[in-house]
């Protein structure tokens, strides 16, 4: 039980991931679906930031800190940063696809798109 308490913040990441997945499965609108993919992906930010956190640690910037000060892990923060930018452009690509799908078919419901084929 104590493990559940000490690891509680990590479950936030799992919760956000599950929310995103649920949204993707039950989505009735492609724009909503793209937003759900964004939610799903934000779980990785939560996890990355949490993994590198150290209690009492400062930000890993030694401009005004002496070297050797306790800081949070800079590696995962660097990973998260590029993740954010790449996600933004991937969202743009997905939304552009949605625009074209709507133009071709006139519907945004993913289930209706399945019925249209054939």
């Amino acid at each position, binding site marked *: 039980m104590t493990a559940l308490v000490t690891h509680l913040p990590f479950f936030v990441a799992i919760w956000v*991931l599950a929310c995103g*997945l649920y949204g993707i499965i039950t989505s009735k609108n492609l724009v909503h679906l793209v937003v759900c993919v964004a939610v799903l992906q934000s779980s990785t930010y939560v996890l990355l930031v949490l993994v*590198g956190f150290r209690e009492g640690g400062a930000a890993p910037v030694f401009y005004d800190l002496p070297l050797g000060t306790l800081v949070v892990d800079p590696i995962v923060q660097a990973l998260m940063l590029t993740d954010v930018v790449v996600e933004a452009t991937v969202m743009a690509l997905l939304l552009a696809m949605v625009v074209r799908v709507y133009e071709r078919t006139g519907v945004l419901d993913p289930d209706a798109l399945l019925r249209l084929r054939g």
Partner: protein
Amino acid sequence: MSPRTRRILFYFGAAGLVTILAWGVLGLPAYGQYQGPYGDLVSYAAVQSRHATDVVSAVNFDIRAIDTLGEEFILFTSVMGVVLLLRKRVEPKDVDEAAADVATGREKEPPSNAVRLLCLGLVGVSVLFGLYIVTHGQLTPGGGFQGGVVLATVPLLVYLAADVRVLHQIAPRKLVDAGEALAAGAFIGLGLVAVALQEPFLTNFLPLGTTGRIDSSGTIMAISIVTGIEVGGAFVVLLSSFLAETLERIPEEHRGEP
């Protein structure tokens, strides 16, 4: 598959996935107790041997620079994908004419004075702030990725304050396209200079300068600046592609007419 069966199937799959993830997460060190040595080693390496005080930038633009290069090209290709998907199939004869809000079929309401004042007031501040973030990435939190996004908001502010014609004037599409591509190429170019000097790809070859000054850290700063141009350009291309899609679309019955 009906939505209902799909949902039931999802519940089973999700239960399994969440269980495995929870199991994995419980094997991690407790929250706040992470003791891995690499973060500290990287901090020393960044400050002592690269003269960069922002370790996050040093990781991105030096220690794992080749991965950042790959990620930058993810960005580059997805922007290319958007441009390809949203390309105009009917070329309007006069872009300026078509740039007005013809899709709505009536005169566009001019933006309110409050919006114009706020947006124009923010333009100068955003340019300055964006340039500061891009150029100080090696010293304080920031760098090319963040600063590029800040700089890309400037054309958006101009669009909100004026209209799309002014946007095309301050950020001509050809210039932005060329700038984005050149900046992406410059990242590889900086890596190849090191190769030409018989060092591994992306090794620093510039003078390191005094730690804590703006001209310190050698290639970290150079790569940060080209990344800033690339990211800013990419977001402006995205912005103008989506605006072109919504604003420059010609109604069906007017196609072919000037």
